[in-house]
């Protein structure tokens, strides 16, 4: 029965206090949410933590869920906001620990390179600015530009522009690497 219930029905039921509906909904979407978080953050540990943030806040967010949006769109919106907050906090953290932080950052970077655990893709994603990365993370999830626009709260034109910017940046990066 649950399996055939639409996301939106589940979300409405959960918003009204149905614990089972909430569990089903989250279980259904967790993996996709995690993949999205990974694209946003580019690191597995970060993605896990981001998911934790989202899960913690989701019950209260759900109370504001309105049927007019698709659950996935709504969920991604929550995730994008959570990711922004995380970045903001990390920026604050970095600022608060200047000096020590610089050394730490350099050390981490060196580790990462030697471990060769980061492939070209994540490096490339990391070189994009946050807006472009968020946009790509959505578009790569088969989201239409319109849907991505709704999630990010910008116009569809902006999304299209960002996608082409991102492509340009990636192409430039690839060319540079190929030249090496």
């Amino acid at each position, binding site marked *: 029965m649950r399996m055939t219930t639409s996301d939106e029905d589940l979300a409405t039921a*959960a918003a009204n*206090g149905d*614990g089972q509906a*909430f*569990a089903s909904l*989250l*279980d259904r979407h*967790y*993996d996709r949410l*995690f*993949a999205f978080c*990974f*694209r946003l953050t580019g690191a*597995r540990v970060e*993605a*896990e*933590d981001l*998911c*934790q*943030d989202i*899960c*913690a*806040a*989701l*019950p*209260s*967010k*759900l*109370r*504001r869920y*309105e049927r007019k949006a698709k659950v996935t769109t709504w969920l991604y919106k929550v995730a994008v*906001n*959570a990711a*922004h*907050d*995380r970045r*903001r*906090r990390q920026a*604050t*953290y970095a600022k*608060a*620990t200047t000096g020590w932080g610089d050394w730490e950052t350099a050390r981490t970077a060196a580790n990462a390179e030697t471990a060769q655990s980061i*492939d*070209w*893709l*994540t490096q490339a994603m990391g070189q994009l600015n946050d807006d472009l990365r968020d946009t*790509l993370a959505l*578009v*790569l999830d088969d989201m239409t530009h319109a849907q991505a626009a709704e999630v990010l709260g910008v116009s569809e034109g902006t999304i299209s522009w960002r*996608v*082409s910017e991102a*492509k340009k940046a*990636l*192409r430039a990066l690839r060319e540079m690497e190929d030249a090496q």
Partner: protein
Amino acid sequence: MSGDDLDDLKAMMADATPRPDPARRAENLALAQKNFDALQGSQDAARPTSVTAPSGLWTGVKKMFDAMTTKGGLTATTALVAAGFLFVTPMGQDLWRDAPLADIGDEAKLSLGTPADTAPAQTPQERAIDQAVAEADGYLADDLERARNEATVTANEDALVPQAPMIVVETEVADAGATDRMSATGLQSEVMLSEPMVAAPVPADVIVQPALDTEEFANAAQNPLKITSEEPVSTFSIDVDTASYALVRSSLMRGQLPPADAVRVEELINYFPYAYPDPAADEAPFRPTVTVTGTPWNADTQLVHIGLQGQMPAVEDRPPLNLVFLIDTSGSMDDPTKLPLLRQSFMLMLDNLRPEDEVAIVEYAGSAGQVLAPTPASEKGMIVAALMQLGAGGSTNGQGGLEQAYATAEAMAADGEIGRVILATDGDFNVGMSDPAALTDFIADKRDTGTYLSVLGFGRGNLDDATMQALAQNGNGTAAYIDTLSEAQKVLVDQLTGALFPIAGDVKVQVEFNPAAVAEYRLIGYETRALAREDFNNDAVDAGELGAGHSVTAIYEVTPVGSPAQLSDPLRYGETTVAGDSDELGFLKLRYKEPGADISQLLETPIMASEGAANAEAQFAIAIAGFGQLLRDNPYLGDWSYADAIALANANRGEDAFGYRTEAVQLMRLAQSLSQ
């Protein structure tokens, strides 16, 4: 625009994306479910009223930080409270002028600076905070101007819910819920509406944790029954504070019975003005009126009602006032029921000052500072500007501020002028002189040099009622709790003269009961004002001040000899001494000092069993005494109930020009509903 690049990227991304770690997945799902369940629970709990919302958010945050510093992990519901709170903060800072919440901010930074290995445990909380800031920021950018033009509290509500259309829906839901509950418990909606600080229904998505009270109340165990043959003398100091009544009201208004320790019955009784007979012009500055009447809650005992009415000197002749407002601007004052209400309250008061009166403002928060040099009250614009500049931030160092305030007051006072420091705080005296005894000693010293201290309490949740009481009692001032603007009007406008002009100092009451007529007696209230028998004649012992036009009431319940209500058996071998005829229940002695005098005067009068019948004034005082004892669960009241108190108070409302008594009846009805 070819899709090739993007498709490549997508394929790569799909390969690169790991599977979620099953353990973390289960953990996160469990966390979500836990928070979900916690949220459901809170729906059933009593929703905080408009009155509690701001302080509830505050205490929630306080709780969160407390927990953060002690153990890294928290329930995420607490974090949501923080989120709700921080939504408010940036908004509040702009609306209530400057003042970032420095103390909170510091703690937040600390938590952000924790080593990375503890970070995961804190992430949901931190994330919630940051999200709150982010959303509030976004909102600010768009709508700050509009929000500024709205009432502060309404603006906060908007800030809590970023999307405007949702506000309407959720607000209505919250309101409807509140109304249902109100009618379910028999509350009257007019009670709520009579509060000037309405607005701010709690957005449905913000969970307000049950307030973590750090309030401290001054009270002692209720006066026990005394056996006249063993202890015939009862001695106490008068008490003209009203803080307890306002605290009781504030508790009842937010749907809770007040903690028993918050109820000081004598302060409830003395909250109301009574029309006792005025003293004659050439008599003592106040006049005692004694009535003896039947006890409403016990047919076999009697009540001895003692009313002191202070004279009202010609107000036109009063000497100029030198007032120093000592204002707590610590971070915790950043709350609609605190600093903004304080500003409004003081502005009400300014209108009642004379041009020759002088006002100075000293703030304290971490470091003390003089905000306004002594300024004549005629320069109202300057004073108002200084009040508006006050911003909350920093921790509290009450003592540094006190020293500066007293120094300012001493510099201001010319000969024959009255100097008074008016301390306004939400109760924090945490930094600096943390020893309350040292603080009160300091104030007592200053009292002897002629500068008095009054204390105004604001806000709930953090109120250190005990310290407030101690400070005011030692500073020859009154302690009042300001919960609404109408209370501010009562304290700072209607009764300003009385509050600022003592007509009699160190007023002590001593009653000696006649064991031949009274078997047992019990003083109702005044537990915190008890004096030792020998203190009565000792002029070095401090006692309460009586302000111009104030009245003070004390009520004893006495059991006549031979009454079936007598609880103790008479002693077989005890001696019964009869002083005078047994129609004399006891002997009332009063001591007071003229303002500025060191030697006390004595007033004496016998209490006759046939003393005049109780009029409406005395009966109303008795109804309030009964109400206070009901709130304290007094065992001597038997079956007497709130309904009886309501009936008695209703029948004796008298003229009630200010509506105080009508309000008291409403509070009784509220207490009646809440106690069921």
